């Protein structure tokens, strides 16, 4: 678990690798496996297809990896639920298919300081810089690992990677040969059916095709009513990996189509009595993407990668109707080592077209918007003293159509002491660039009934074309140590200094005659500052070959400084939306060859901004291998608690409570 391999894809790990930029030897070309001792061979790291691999403890950043096995053993049935295990992450389920997820604070249903990638494809929606987690429903059986990097500067691309990056990496097709069928059924996930088949075409070419269907029950409102949020989705896709022997080339092609339907409860503002009503909103979403990649290892410890993807997404609900098409082309070149230095350069071009349809809630001046993004990076890893001191200097540069030119530099210093311990420190600048939400959209947010004034007051979020990027200077420290052969410790701490954070400023009220009401316009400004600090600790103890314990603790302190309430709306509210203390302890126990038992206990602190109290959560999973091909699992989640609320304001009519759930799953592999 503590071993960390670089991603096969540019956007994520390869991106991080650029920061860590190990001098990966072109092992395949220079090392003769028959000349190695058994000790060396047992100690050798298995290279991924990208032929690059690296110890997690070598990465000078706060990295945590959930392996495919960790995900399976967590009992989670979705990516967001699996992310609860990751230190430094705030994960709150908002309803049956919605989650608020952030790293190191600023959590929100539209959390916008986090970059999420699936195989290097950005999955956050540029409309509001957030992620529709309901549509990120990759079959968990196909996930090789999820790498989470806390802190900025760890990605080469993406102005959104302010607080962190979540990088979801699916398995190489060579690792999913044969058949798999899994059927899950329980009180929360009524049905999840996944089918996969993988084959090969010879000459190092492998493929898989898969399909998945999911139907999830609705949850309840805190008052006990049905929350109208039952959710179902389907998807089908393929992946091909071609690794021709004896050449340094690897090719990957993957694609997917998907669709989903759900709903929620939505408060719709009215200018006449009763000034708001609650409606059953239905949500439908669909999309497709195709992604190709070519990577070549050159003999002299250098390599290049070219990749491109097309991504189409569509979402339709009462408040929002949106269709987007994106074309992305990226390239990266890792130069041969030059003396003490190792240089990596890269570039990206992205074109995205968004077509919005006006709704009773969201209007705009121009419905179709096309944007271009040009980005580049350069990074130099300098070995000051071999196997002791390494410094890495790099910067991203980008030009976007919202805030123009942006520079995001990072400096990292790393101290190594053999395999035993490693310490690192970094300073980075990062920005969260504006989105259409702030610059273009007019949102009819609510109506304050007569009382304050004799007239109703319509609260309207106005487009703010002058809204600029949010800025962060982050200071980070980390330390990793092998305390004993079976015990690892990983500590990281941060001090984040934010400026120009988005603020909902009150503008001058306007009177409208028909119907007679007052409009309170709100503009998005950059008037809030914040300082946050915290740390995350991870201990992993491999008690023996059959028993593993892992514990994480995360501390977060947020201090925002925004305009007072007569000038802005809740400018400091983010302080109370992320838990201060979080921890979890989990065990993975192989009782014998056929039976394993896994448990996890979570504690999440209260959210003072919401009616959300601190809660404990216990999950347990028992898995039996009935035959070599057939496995049965029984999972209980949130076992201790009838129901609890995880997010949402007291006035949020769409808020739901999360209850106890049980499911059984049968998995057949052959």
């Amino acid at each position, binding site marked *: 678990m503590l071993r960390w391999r670089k991603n096969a894809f540019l956007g994520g790990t390869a991106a991080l690798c650029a920061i860590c930029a190990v001098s*990966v030897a072109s092992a395949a070309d*220079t090392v003769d496996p*028959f000349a190695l*001792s*058994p*000790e*060396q061979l047992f100690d050798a790291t*298995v*290279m991924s297809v990208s032929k690059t*691999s690296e110890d997690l403890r070598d990465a000078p950043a706060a990295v945590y990896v959930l392996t495919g096995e960790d995900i399976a053993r967590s009992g989670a049935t979705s990516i967001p639920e699996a992310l609860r295990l990751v230190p430094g992450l705030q994960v709150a389920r908002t309803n049956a298919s919605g989650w608020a997820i952030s790293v190191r604070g600023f959590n929100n249903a539209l959390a916008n300081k986090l970059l999420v990638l699936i195989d290097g494809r950005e999955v956050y929606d540029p409309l509001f810089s957030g992620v529709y987690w309901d549509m990120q429903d990759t079959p968990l059986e196909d996930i090789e690992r999820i790498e989470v990097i806390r802190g900025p500067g760890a990605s080469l691309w993406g102005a959104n990677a302010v607080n962190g990056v979540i990088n979801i990496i699916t398995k190489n097709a060579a690792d999913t040969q044969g058949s798999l069928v899994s059927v899950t059924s329980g009180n929360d996930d009524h049905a999840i059916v996944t089918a996969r088949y993988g084959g090969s075409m010879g000459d190092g070419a492998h493929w898989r095709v898969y399909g998945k269907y999911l139907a999830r029950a609705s949850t309840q409102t805190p008052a006990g009513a049905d929350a109208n949020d039952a959710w179902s989705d389907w998807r089908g896709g393929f992946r091909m990996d071609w690794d021709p022997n004896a050449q340094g080339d690897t090719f990957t092609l993957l694609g997917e189509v998907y669709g989903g339907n759900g709903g929620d409860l939505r408060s719709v503002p009215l200018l006449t009595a009763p000034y708001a009503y609650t409606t059953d909103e239905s949500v439908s979403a669909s999309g497709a993407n195709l992604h190709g990649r070519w990577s070549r290892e050159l003999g002299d410890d250098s390599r290049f990668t070219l990749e491109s993807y097309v991504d189409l997404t569509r979402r339709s609900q009462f408040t929002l109707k949106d269709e987007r098409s994106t074309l992305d082309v990226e390239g990266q070149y890792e130069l041969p080592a030059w003396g003490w230095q190792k240089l990596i350069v890269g570039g990206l071009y992205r074109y995205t077209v968004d077509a919005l349809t006006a709704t009773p809630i969201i209007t705009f001046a121009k419905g179709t918007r096309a944007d271009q993004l040009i980005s580049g990076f350069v990074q130099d890893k300098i070995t000051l003293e071999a196997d002791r001191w390494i410094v890495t200097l790099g910067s991203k540069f980008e030009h976007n159509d919202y805030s123009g030119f942006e520079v995001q530099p990072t400096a990292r210093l790393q101290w190594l002491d053999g395999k035993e311990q490693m310490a690192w420190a970094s300073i980075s600048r990062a920005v969260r660039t504006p989105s259409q939400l702030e610059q273009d959209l007019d949102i009819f947010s609510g109506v304050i009934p007569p009382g304050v004034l004799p007239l109703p007051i319509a609260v309207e979020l106005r487009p703010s074309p002058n809204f600029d990027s949010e800025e962060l200077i982050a200071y980070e420290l980390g330390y990793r140590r092998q305390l004993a052969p079976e015990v690892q410790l990983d500590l990281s701490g941060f001090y984040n200094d934010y400026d120009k954070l988005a603020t909902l400023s009150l503008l001058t009220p306007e009177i409208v005659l028909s119907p007679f009401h007052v409009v309170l316009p709100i503009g998005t400004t950059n008037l809030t500052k914040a300082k946050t600090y915290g740390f995350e600790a991870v201990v992993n103890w491999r008690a023996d070959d059959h028993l593993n314990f892992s514990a994480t603790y995360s501390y977060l302190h947020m201090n925002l400084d925004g305009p007072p309430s007569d000038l802005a709306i809740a400018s400091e509210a983010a302080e109370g939306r992320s838990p201060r203390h979080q921890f979890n302890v989990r065990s993975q126990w192989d009782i014998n060859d056929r039976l394993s038992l896994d448990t996890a206990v979570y504690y999440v602190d209260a959210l003072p901004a919401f009616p959300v109290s601190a809660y404990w959560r216990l999950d347990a999973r028992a898995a039996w291998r009935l035959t070599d091909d057939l496995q049965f699992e029984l999972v209980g989640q949130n076992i201790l608690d009838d129901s609890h609320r995880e997010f949402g304001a007291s006035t949020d009519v769409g808020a739901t409570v999360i209850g106890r759930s049980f499911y059984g799953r049968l998995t057949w592999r052959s």
Partner: protein
Amino acid sequence: MALLNKIHRAGLALLLAAGFLSPAYGQDNVRLVEQEIKAGLLYNFLKYTQWPAEHPNRGVVVCLIGGDPFGGHLQPMAGRTVNQHSIEIRNLQNLQDIDACSLLYIHENQKPNWPHLQKALAGKDVLTVSDFDGFAESGGMIEFTRNDNRIGVKINVDAVAAAHLAVQSRLLRLASTVHTAATD
């Protein structure tokens, strides 16, 4: 002492500058594709196993049954020598030829066929190696395992002894040793 340090550092600098500090030479561990590691280990199995003295001139024959999963990484072993014997690699077509094999690598796809193969191997001094889960416990000799990013092996000491083979302690120390599981 200080002088030694200086020389050491200058040497490192030189190695680095020349691009020589590949992990094989540095203290960093080696990074290889899975089949290369397994091929290297097969070679070491040959090196650290003693066969009974009855066939001193048999040569070292590595047999593959069910196909070659090494993706071209095993072939370079052919013609190399181990303990002064040249290594030959054969794709076994006929079970009757099993006598000629020193080591038999059993492809995962032969798992259903394994009980049958075991009968054919009974009493023969052939070192059996495979990837499939449960191989060692079911009477196979060496099973490759994958622990996260590293390759490991399970060695069934009962099966090795029954074939009158001797695996040297250097290998046994690095392996996890198992016994044949009792069959009900």
